[in-house]
């Protein structure tokens, strides 16, 4: 019995020593592994997308997550970049866009609130009503529509997709009947592309005389193709803030 106990005690001690050594190795291995892993990542180079240069503008190449399939990366050429922030294709006839001006939203995204801010900065007299009904359109000469659906915005405003679509349809009917000039503004970028957003966009494009577009939303050429096919002027902007420059040119 005594021999057995001593043997057990020795075994326990050996196990403790082995476990301590294993833990020490584990700590050392972990820290070394992390350092190596970081170094490995730091030293890895990835191929950068190569831009092709069209004659008309200084291009850059962008990649976006298409909302249609987030796993599909869409590579496309852009005409705007950090140095060339606004590219207008065609000529915008600013004399068409006269007061009174209405600014509204199709899709209740925050882009309409941004347009509201932009109009204030530019110093334009206008009315902002993101949820205006068809009966509120009469009397205006120009309507600026921020297109782009936001489920958060619709939810916050307590408006269903069906109601918003019906409102948009009714407004466009009134716009046509009253002969308003329409500026289609898609300034939320690629995150404002999607099935519902495109429904609103198509509705507005059909009666627009001018398009303002944050260019990363044009990854499939939807807007530039439409503008080309219908001979519409289109202002491509690099970032939302560049709307200030475009609106200053249109309204001032």
């Amino acid at each position, binding site marked *: 019995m005594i021999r057995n106990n001593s043997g057990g005690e020795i075994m326990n001690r050996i196990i403790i020593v082995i476990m301590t050594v294993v833990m020490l190795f584990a700590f050392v291995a972990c820290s070394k592994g992390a350092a190596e892993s*970081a170094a490995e990542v730091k030293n890895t180079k990835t191929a950068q997308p190569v831009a092709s240069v069209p004659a008309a503008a200084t291009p850059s190449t962008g990649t976006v997550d298409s909302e249609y399939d987030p796993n599909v990366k869409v590579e496309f050429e852009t005409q705007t970049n950090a140095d060339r922030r606004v590219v207008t294709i065609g000529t915008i006839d600013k004399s068409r866009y006269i007061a009174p001006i209405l600014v509204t939203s199709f899709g209740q995204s*925050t882009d309409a609130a941004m347009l509201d801010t932009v109009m204030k900065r530019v110093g334009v007299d206008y009315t902002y009503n993101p949820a205006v009904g068809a009966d509120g359109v009469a009397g205006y000469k120009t309507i600026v529509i921020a297109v782009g659906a936001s489920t958060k915005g619709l939810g916050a405003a307590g408006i269903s997709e069906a109601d918003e679509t019906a409102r948009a349809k009714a407004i466009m009917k009134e716009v046509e009947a009253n002969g308003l000039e329409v500026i289609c503004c898609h300034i939320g970028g690629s995150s404002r592309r999607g099935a519902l957003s495109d429904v609103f966009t198509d509705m507005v494009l059909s009666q627009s005389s001018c398009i303002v577009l944050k260019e990363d939303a044009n990854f499939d050429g939807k807007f530039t193709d439409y503008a080309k096919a219908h001979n519409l002027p289109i202002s491509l902007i690099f970032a939302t*803030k560049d709307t200030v420059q475009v609106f200053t040119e249109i309204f001032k």
Partner: protein
Amino acid sequence: MNKTYIKNIIVILIALVFAVPASIDFLSMHAQEQIADNPHVSDVRMLSYYSPGLKGTASDTELFILDSGKPGGTLLVLGGTHPNESAGMISAISLVENLKVNQGRVIVIPWTNKSGFTHTSPLDGMLDKFDITLADGCTRTFRIGNRLTNPVDQWPDRSFYKGTSGRKLVGTENAEIRNVNRMYYGKADGVLTEKVCYGIFDLIQSEDVNLVMDMHEGSPEFLYLDCTMVNWKQDNSTAMSIASSMALSMQLDGLDMRAEYSGKSSYGLSHRSLGDNTSAMMTLMETYNPSMGPLHGKMDEDLIVNGNEPNYLQAHRDGYVYFDVPENGYPLIQRVARHVTCISYLCQAFSEENPDKAIVLEGIGTYDEIVVKGLEGLLKPVK
């Protein structure tokens, strides 16, 4: 003395050699950051003033009041809602130390979840503290806590809990019962974290707060970085107008920023539940914190203060991270400057739309000025 006793005593002494310094180090997390004097701070109160149930608990926290004495609006700034999001606390402290309010009133809470500052996230390999050496050579130490209340102060996490907002905490969300930003609008006699939330809710009501900014940070995987969440109100939709104006101003300064509405189901979060239940305009801003995501490498002061995280830069280049991870890191000072600039532009926009409730700030400078100053110039020496 029996040999066995001697052996036991030796083992205990050896254990104490390790345990005592570890305990001292752990308890040092209770040592709160000092704040430099600012003659423009008119009053310092404890949150228990508004939520008496907090009195004597580890979650009772200071609020600093900077009152211009000139009638205007009231801004409430929350830092340290999540103690591991360092830019929130540092921004709040920098406001307390530098701000002069020329009209209206500003109330700042640097350690909103004070209990959360007393423990870390050990399994995330988080650092517990970091130092900033100031221009005069002295050093200030800041804690990096855990996003949740310390379980020593609030335990156990119930297997099911329904907060006052209606948010149901169940399954993997159990621990969120200790998350200040899930338990709004709080409960005076609820669990400790709810008492904190109730204190802030009551403070907003009692002090007639008009505008609230809750400062946060997120890991690079988070979709709402460089973004301000805004509550939508049926009777007062101007919060988005103010936030959009702020976002445009920041964009014109070359800083990415956008404003988004609160999520429909963001129950219990400050911007949603305080917005729904008070008259204040609620905003919550997020900056990118490279130390917070699961890909972060070695946790050291370089990562915390200089924001260098090559793993995330690589992940972004490979298309796995949406956020445009800066090539040269995202230093703490830039994140602090972003928060402070956001607050400054929010107040400007608010004052333009509500001239009778204007909140006019001085002493914090522009984004570029703050970055040039650096943390060493922005933070003041403490006595």
